[in-house]
């Protein structure tokens, strides 16, 4: 192939075929274009305010590393006036986070950012290893998933921050749109497409976990371009060989997105656009309630599936499970229909097939109704930890209650106010560890 010139500067040799639109760019132009697009996303959505302190959810992986690097670059170039902090969560699985946390530590130095690593022991009073010890290997995925969902928000609250940015990219958003269509979850589809999830206006107490704004500045950035950016910018990131298999839904949605991208490069963006447009068509969504109920739902719900402890795919949301639930509903509806048919006069075999269903009565609708009505989630705050929850007590607190009840007597009882108690618990646990070792 004859060397072609960069479509942007028309001076340098083009080295990069942009995955998003297949334009040919030189290295500097690609990097600038990528950064400028993120800048455009940030400014056109009014994502940040001057002087804001922002936690970057950092895992050491490519997405969050690129996010940190780009935000640092843009903060300096366009003088956003942001105070950026790296926030990492340590689930407390021996060995699991070692490499990624080392990466994050190096990133903190490279970018001159403050780093805060918070462990599950500090946030919940339990490390995942301890949870596994308590509940066995089988059930711990539930814990990991629920704890992980709240961890960044709890961590940010601990640091006194109100805004967490995560590295979710366009591929993730597109995947979630398809997944929620397959799962039939319109409320979630509607909320995961918006760039900001969770709004601070709802919470009265600024110290509560509810006061956390979550956003994804890489929402329109292609995963492939993130990889290219990290590569050409020589970023130091930890390429995680995913040790868990994603749940079946996410897996099949992901494969579909990759195939779509091959057929039409813009397809990822197009799915995101469809998702945004469809969010406006979801009954009782943003329009219906003045943007309060949808956007105030814990953003972390959209967190990637799977769990770090490599215990296999999580059971919730699995294709087969959903199929079973749905099909028994269908059978109930059919059974109702069937009663209707058999009670109406049906001709003998030789006669023409009955084509009008029972003339006298309507088809019973009852069995259907339970599912047809979209479940309306009323979001409130967890009475124990203040985290947004549709229940009185949030899932994490329910799980913690169970764990703590069964904690061996010689352990210290864990209170339900992680703000106050967790530190002492963490210390207590540490002392115990020392004693045991």
């Amino acid at each position, binding site marked *: 192939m004859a060397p072609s010139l960069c479509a942007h500067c028309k001076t340098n040799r083009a080295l990069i075929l942009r995955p998003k639109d297949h334009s040919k760019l030189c290295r500097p132009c690609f990097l600038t274009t990528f950064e400028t697009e993120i800048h455009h996303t940030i400014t056109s959505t009014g994502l940040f305010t001057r002087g804001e302190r922002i936690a970057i959810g950092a895992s050491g992986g490519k997405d969050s590393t690129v996010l940190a690097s780009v935000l640092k670059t843009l903060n300096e170039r366009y003088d956003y006036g942001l105070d950026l902090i790296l926030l990492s969560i340590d689930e407390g699985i021996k060995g699991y986070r070692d490499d990624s946390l080392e990466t994050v530590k190096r990133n903190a130095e490279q970018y001159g950012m403050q780093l805060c690593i918070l462990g599950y022991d500090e946030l919940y009073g339990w490390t995942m290893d301890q949870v596994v010890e308590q509940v066995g290997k089988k059930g711990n995925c539930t814990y990991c998933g629920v704890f992980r969902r709240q961890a960044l928000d709890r961590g940010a609250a601990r640091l006194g921050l109100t805004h967490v940015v995560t590295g979710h990219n366009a591929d993730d958003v597109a995947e979630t749109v398809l997944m929620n269509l397959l799962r039939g979850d319109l409320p979630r589809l509607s909320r995961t497409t918006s760039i900001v999830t969770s709004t601070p206006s709802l919470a009265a107490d600024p110290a509560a976990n509810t006061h956390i704004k979550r956003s994804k500045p890489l929402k329109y950035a292609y995963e492939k371009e993130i990889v290219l950016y990290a590569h050409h910018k020589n970023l130091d990131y930890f390429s995680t060989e995913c040790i868990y298999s994603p749940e079946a839904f996410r897996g099949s949605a992901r494969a579909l997105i990759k195939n779509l991208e091959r057929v039409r490069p813009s397809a990822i963006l197009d799915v995101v656009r*469809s998702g945004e447009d469809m969010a406006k068509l979801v009954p009782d969504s943003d329009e219906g309630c003045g943007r309060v109920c949808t956007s105030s739902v814990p953003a972390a719900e959209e967190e990637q599936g799977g769990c770090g402890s490599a215990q296999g795919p999580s059971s919730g949301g699995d294709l087969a499970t959903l199929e079973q639930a*749905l099909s028994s509903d269908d059978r109930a509806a059919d059974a109702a229909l069937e009663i209707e048919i058999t009670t109406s006069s049906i001709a003998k075999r030789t006669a023409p097939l009955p084509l009008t269903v029972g003339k006298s009565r309507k088809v019973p609708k009852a069995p259907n109704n339970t599912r047809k009505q979209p479940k309306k989630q009323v979001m409130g705050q967890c009475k124990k930890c203040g985290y947004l929850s549709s229940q009185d007590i949030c899932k994490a607190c329910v799980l913690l209650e169970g764990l703590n009840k069964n904690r061996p007597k010689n352990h210290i009882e864990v209170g339900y106010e992680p703000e106050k108690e967790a530190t002492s618990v963490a210390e207590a646990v540490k002392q115990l560890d020392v004693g045991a070792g």
Partner: protein
Amino acid sequence: MPGKQITDVVEQLCRRCTENQAVLVVRRDPLCRDCFVRYVHTKVIKHMESFRVRNADPNRQRKLLLALSLGASSVTLLHILDHLLETQTSKSGRTGFGLSVVFVETAGDASHQDRLSKVRQAYPDYDIASLPLHDVFRLVPDQESLSGLLPESATVEELSPADKLVTLFGSLTSATAREDVAATLRTRLVVEYAKSSGCEGVLWGDSTTKLAEKTLAETAKGCGFSLPWHVADGETPFGLAFNYPLRDLLKKELVAYVDVVGSPLPSLVLDSAPTQASMSSKNTTIDDLMKQYFESVEVNFPSIVSNVVRTTGKLKATLTTNDAPACDLCSMPVSDGRFGIHGWGGDQHGIADPILASSGRRLCYGCTRSIPSTTNPTNGSA
């Protein structure tokens, strides 16, 4: 294949009548021939409730147009509706509605004419029209916006409808664009034919599986905004109603129905080429991908397929369709006149005037992806 299902249920009794030998398993229930046929009919007739005789004005016959593709689904729909009308006549001496049929020809394929004449023989009571796709350049009233989609070099005034279609397709740069545009034009042709022949609604033969494919395909094409009108029963921005009476039946069930009912159905159905798993991405279309996807999901997870359709049915069109300007190609209302691919969060160019940026044509986001932007702006009206 039904054959395989039959061997699976050998020696089982039908779960519904508990009398006859089952011939296939439907959503986990072994069913005999009669009970299966009844199952299919019931599911269809449920959606034809509003066209019962007692709802019909004796002085004014309502007319519906069935869009026939000669696939297993639409042939089955014709067959069942024929039964329905026959039963209505025998019971009350009149019918709840009148039925016309239209088939849209695909260029360069003559095999369908043979099937079509068999269909006419099998169902002689209906007017079964066959139209070439390029008739869309004859029947659609707003020819100006439609011709504006042709490339700049084309001297529109001198072209026949057939030439216009060839020119338009020649300007499209991918297989998926050609398929998407063809499907859109087909819908518009069926709509115009329905209007010109006095039909108040169109009956589409889309199965649950097809509707699920369409949901994800339209989403992937950036047409999520128009889904309420593509999948739900009821009024559409076209000014007439769409109905999908097969919406509760899976594709595989309709294929089995053709087989179970037998003559004349199998001889009427156009053999569809099996969807290839490994086509080059150059020739693959978005519709192909979704077809493959749901063909595999349908095997083990039929309820998930129905759930996608049910979920999409909950989307509510917000804008009053009369107020919003329509897309030149698909005719769907575009809210706030947000034409083209610019002027939203995912557009990184920040072009202030979306209409200008789309070279004067008024195309919705999704259609802009199919029609190349380097074509003729002359016919676009601002």
